[in-house]
């Protein structure tokens, strides 16, 4: 062991770095390949357009998820209507979220 090794020791070991980077990338790629279909962003955009015809909503108030429970894929759509809108419109639309479609 040379003197230089002593100084280098204060930096994180490259193997540790490799492991941390891999943990992140592998976790992300597993979600992408096994989880949600790639049409979700577009679906979200189009749903937003349709709903905004009737209600004033923001993009971040719509969430679309695919969840897997056993052999069953559940497409879940959540639309949150704002309080002020609700008072103004008093629309008899079901508030909060409900499973929109099931595909078993």
């Amino acid at each position: 062991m040379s003197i230089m090794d002593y100084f280098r020791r204060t930096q994180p070991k490259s193997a540790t770095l490799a492991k941390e980077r891999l943990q992140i990338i592998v976790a992300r790629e597993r979600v992408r390949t096994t989880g949600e279909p790639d049409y979700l962003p577009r679906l979200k955009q189009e749903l937003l357009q349709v709903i905004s015809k009737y209600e004033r909503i923001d993009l971040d108030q719509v969430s679309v998820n695919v969840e897997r429970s056993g052999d069953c894929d559940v497409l879940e759509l959540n639309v949150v209507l704002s309080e002020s809108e609700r008072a103004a419109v008093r629309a008899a639309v079901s508030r909060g979220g409900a499973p929109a479609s099931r595909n078993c």
Partner: protein
Amino acid sequence: MSKVVVVTSGKGGVGKTTTTANLASGIAALGYKTIAIDFDVGLRNLDLVMGCERRVVYDLVNAIRGEATLRQAVIKDKRIETLYVLPASQTRDKDALTLDGVGRILDELRAAGFEYIFCDSPAGIEWGAQMAMYFADEAIVVTNPEVSSVRDSDRVLGLLDAKTRRAELGEEAIKTHLLLTRYAPARVAKGEMLAYQDVLELLGIPLLGVIPESTAVLQASNAGTPVVLDPTSDAAQAYLDVVQRFLGEERPHRFLESAKKGFFSRIFGGQAATA
């Protein structure tokens, strides 16, 4: 009862062909009728590593297309009585391998009494690699302790789970094994290389073996003699352990720690001991 085993990795140059040659040789040497098939259509390397390149007349694609019988295409090893090689074609035709064709060849080999059928996958995750893994019963995922190799192995594990016959038919999943190659314990000890425990944790499949980085592997491929045929090196012994484990025997993992530094290397800086 025959078993189709794919040797795969995603990344190139990690030791698929070396592993195929050594496992096939090691298992055949125990008396099992074994064949190694090169799926790397267009490149063809297994014949070189196994030392039968001058005896190639017909190949896998000829057999699939019916231009030769399987018996004509298969090469019998000159050293081990029960070992055979089916070389890859050097055609550049990408559609040379067909699902039907490969399935038919494997059926014929099963009928001919082969007990172990090793499929040496090409690098990548394209058609050739998918053909090599499609009919597999078990998969050996060859990985180097290095970021790109580990990531590619993870992708390949995803494919084994989804794009194979067993997955499509909803049968019992392909049994996967991790084989870590080119492992340098001294560098792991210094924190320069991923430890085998880290790779195991990341990939989450059972460890079949760890092959230490060894000059014997290159020398063996230079000569066209699988390294297990001269079991003096660490790498050869590690491969022979892998053969036993693959056949179901319990064997402790060896060559995981670097050799202890001697008195002189401690004093004089010890490159020799850590190399």
